[in-house]
């Protein structure tokens, strides 16, 4: 039980720290395409760290499966969104930006 608690704490800390790095990237990076890379990164490793922490507690109960569904949906749907956003950025910059 103590090992599980430590694992949950470490996974949550790593997840939140990586999300903070992604937010810092969106704040600091010079171009919009660079910022978009950090949005994509936020849906991968940090999200799975938090999912792993939830699964340490819930295992494969209904809550655990719903957590897998939430992170899985974000992981698989966001590339579509990022592609659409990249197209919008390209169109905006071709017109001279707004």
């Amino acid at each position, binding site marked *: 039980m103590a090992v599980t608690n430590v694992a949950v704490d470490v996974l949550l800390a790593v997840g939140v720290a990586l999300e903070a790095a992604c*937010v810092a990237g969106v*704040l600091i990076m010079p171009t919009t395409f660079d910022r978009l890379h950090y949005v994509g990164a936020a849906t991968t490793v940090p999200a799975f760290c938090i*999912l792993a922490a939830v699964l340490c507690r819930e295992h494969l109960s209904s809550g655990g499966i*719903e957590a897998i569904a939430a992170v899985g949906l974000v992981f698989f*749907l966001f590339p579509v969104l990022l592609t659409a956003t990249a197209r*919008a950025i390209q*169109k905006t910059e071709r017109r001279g930006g707004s």
Partner: protein
Amino acid sequence: MNAFVWAATGLVVLILPLLAVAALRRPIDGLVALELGGVLLTLTLLCLAEGFHRSFEYAVAIMAGVLSTISGLVFARFLGRWL
């Protein structure tokens, strides 16, 4: 407060600078910040559901993930076409 509630608090705090980006920079940069905010919101709701031991709140996290994706697509389409 357990670890999950602390993590949710940290994730909510991370949304605040994104609000500043959405308010102050170009609209397309605001869209990028909005998308990252959607990810953070989904993970926050996931942490809160586990932290408060309310299993029905996982469905809220699922809906937040889906709806933030759809809203981002609508905004991307709008910005690409009209701005």
